[in-house]
């Protein structure tokens, strides 16, 4: 019972008309060299050119006829077949020559030919219908890299959720949170003042992380920045609008899960930057399995209760407490400092050819400075019979520049323990070494500096 199809009936004469024009103009474009207007070309020696000219003359006559009468059927079928023959030959020629570096609307961006099979990588975040072949991506990366290095810039890929901001569905706000928000309605009128936005049309509330505006402004002077989120495209664009209302940073560089090439994975294949020049900020390590060396892991920003719950924390949310992350000492400010160090080391301190430098190596070096000179022994942190050196905290400490040991000796500076009663913990107290809980090392890793040890005491276990 549907009236979906108002089936159009096409008059056959106009179909032929379109086909005819296509054929006509096709053959015209295949004469790649511009043909002079004057028909009486004296240079008879060049046969090809003379032929072209004749053809053009013949065509313009035909076109006049088209304009004069709508009835195209009168044209001899012979001229049609020869034209088509010619086009066919041209096409096969082009297949040999053109490598089809990419496509727009399924047509080759170089030869205009319709491409049947989908190959290469889609770049829908730049423009709908755009795809690029792998060779072309490599070529673009190379030229872009030179351009970027000339401007003393590198690439920075930024995650949204828990990295730059925190969002919740309006329906997931707790009563306490709603209560608090009600008391703040005045400041909420202009969300940009408190960086808290109620987005009714997508049923969400978004809180930008403290310091994010300063972060983006300063980072944009050192990096060409992309957003890369597992959220969908409309959400990603809305967040980009909040973060970058003047479209200074992320124009055509917002990548959403709709643009990725692999599910539940983020990849640098859709980023037009060389891997040796890209840094990534993300709170989810597992999303970047292929690019761990480019990654700066971020401490998760949980502003809303629903976000805490999602990760299994049952504490009060920052919103419920009416608090927020500290600006100058918070995650973004700390990471910005590290980024500045990496940037200046990459451009100013490293010798040799710019193009041969690798920001991943620089990142490693900068990270190794953080706990340089520390000698760490772990106590009751790893399960027994666990290969200590395989544990992620052990690795983390080493990446931060500390040396790790299984045995105590006078050169040890820190004992990381979960229990004050262990032999090693007691030794630390006796020898006046630092005794800290494992969170110390994780916090140091997030904030890129040695944190006051006294803030991470090892609490006595309940039995004792």
């Amino acid at each position, binding site marked *: *019972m549907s*009236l979906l199809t*108002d*089936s*159009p*009936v*096409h*008059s056959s004469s*106009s*179909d032929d*008309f*379109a086909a005819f*024009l*296509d054929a006509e*103009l*096709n053959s*015209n*474009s295949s004469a790649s060299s*511009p043909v002079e207007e004057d028909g009486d070309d004296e240079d008879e020696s060049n046969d090809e050119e003379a032929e072209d000219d004749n053809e053009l003359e013949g065509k313009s006559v035909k076109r006049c006829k088209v304009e004069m009468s709508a009835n195209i059927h009168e044209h001899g079928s012979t001229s049609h077949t020869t034209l088509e023959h010619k086009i066919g030959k041209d096409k096969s020629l082009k297949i040999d020559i053109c490598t089809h*570096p*990419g496509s*727009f*609307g*399924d*047509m*080759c*961006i*170089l*030869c*205009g*030919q*319709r491409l049947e099979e989908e190959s290469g990588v889609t*770049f829908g975040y*730049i*423009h*709908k*219908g*755009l795809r*690029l072949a792998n060779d072309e991506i490599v070529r*673009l990366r190379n*030229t*872009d890299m030179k*351009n*970027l290095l000339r*401007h003393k810039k590198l690439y920075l890929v930024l995650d949204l959720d828990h990295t730059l901001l925190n969002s919740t569905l309006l329906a997931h706000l707790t009563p306490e949170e709603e209560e608090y928000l009600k008391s703040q309605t005045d400041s909420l009128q202009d969300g940009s003042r408190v960086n808290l936005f109620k987005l009714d049309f997508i049923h969400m509330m978004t809180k930008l992380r403290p310091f994010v505006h300063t972060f983006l402004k300063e980072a944009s002077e050192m990096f*060409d920045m992309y957003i890369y989120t597992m959220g969908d495209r409309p959400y990603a664009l809305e967040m980009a609008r909040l973060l970058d209302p003047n479209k*200074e940073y992320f124009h*055509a560089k917002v990548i959403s899960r709709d643009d990725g090439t692999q599910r539940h994975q983020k990849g640098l294949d859709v980023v*037009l930057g060389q891997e040796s020049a890209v840094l990534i900020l993300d709170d989810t390590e597992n999303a970047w399995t292929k690019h761990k060396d480019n990654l700066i892991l971020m401490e998760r920003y949980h502003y809303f209760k629903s976000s805490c719950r999602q990760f299994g924390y049952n504490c009060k949310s920052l919103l419920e407490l009416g608090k927020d992350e500290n600006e100058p000492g918070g995650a973004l400010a700390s990471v910005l400092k590290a980024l500045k160090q990496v940037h200046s080391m990459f451009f100013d301190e490293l010798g040799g050819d710019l193009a041969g430098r690798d920001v991943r190596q620089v990142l490693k070096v900068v990270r190794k400075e953080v706990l340089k000179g520390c000698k760490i022994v772990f106590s009751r942190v790893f399960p027994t019979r666990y290969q200590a050196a395989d544990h992620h905290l052990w690795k983390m400490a080493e990446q931060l520049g500390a040396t790790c040991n299984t045995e105590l000796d006078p050169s040890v500076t820190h004992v990381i323990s979960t229990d004050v009663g262990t032999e090693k913990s007691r030794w630390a107290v006796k020898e006046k070494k630092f005794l800290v809980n494992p969170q110390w090392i994780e916090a140091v890793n997030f904030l890129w500096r040695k944190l006051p040890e006294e803030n991470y005491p090892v609490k006595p276990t309940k039995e004792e």
Partner: protein
Amino acid sequence: MFFHIVLERNMQLHPRHFGRNLREHLVSKLMKDVEGTCSGRHGFVVAITGVDSIGKGLIRDGTGFVTFPVKYQCVVFRPFKGEILEAVVTMVNKMGFFAEAGPVQIFVSNHLIPDDMEFQSGDMPNYTTSDGSVKIQKDSEVRLKIIGTRVDATEIFCIGTIKDDFLGVINDPTAV
């Protein structure tokens, strides 16, 4: 290229419209249904300019809807391979630039931008000749040649080139 052509379409009309204003209803429905749409054969329907004839209606069994064959004149726009088109630049990046001519979306790859024009990144990305005399950026008007077209139900895509004589910028927005 614009054409003024005659097309035919079978229109279904709900019985509630059967009355004195039947013809008006048919025409307004036709305009709503057809204007602004694309067809692979004819391109983008810009406007209906007249209705030539409305044939005898055929009652559909069971629904009471009636199908009328309608012959109408309209202006259509369809780009052709080899055609020279003027378009407005909408986006410039390292891959080339995108431009629009009415409903037509055109991509000109940097392969098909003259070699002496180089990409400049920044707030207003552009392609500029080494002497700075010619610049293509967002909102520039360009003359280009179509080398490939694809007409969908809703969109028209084209591949263009400006790597030929007399093609390129025809109006520089910054020069005004």
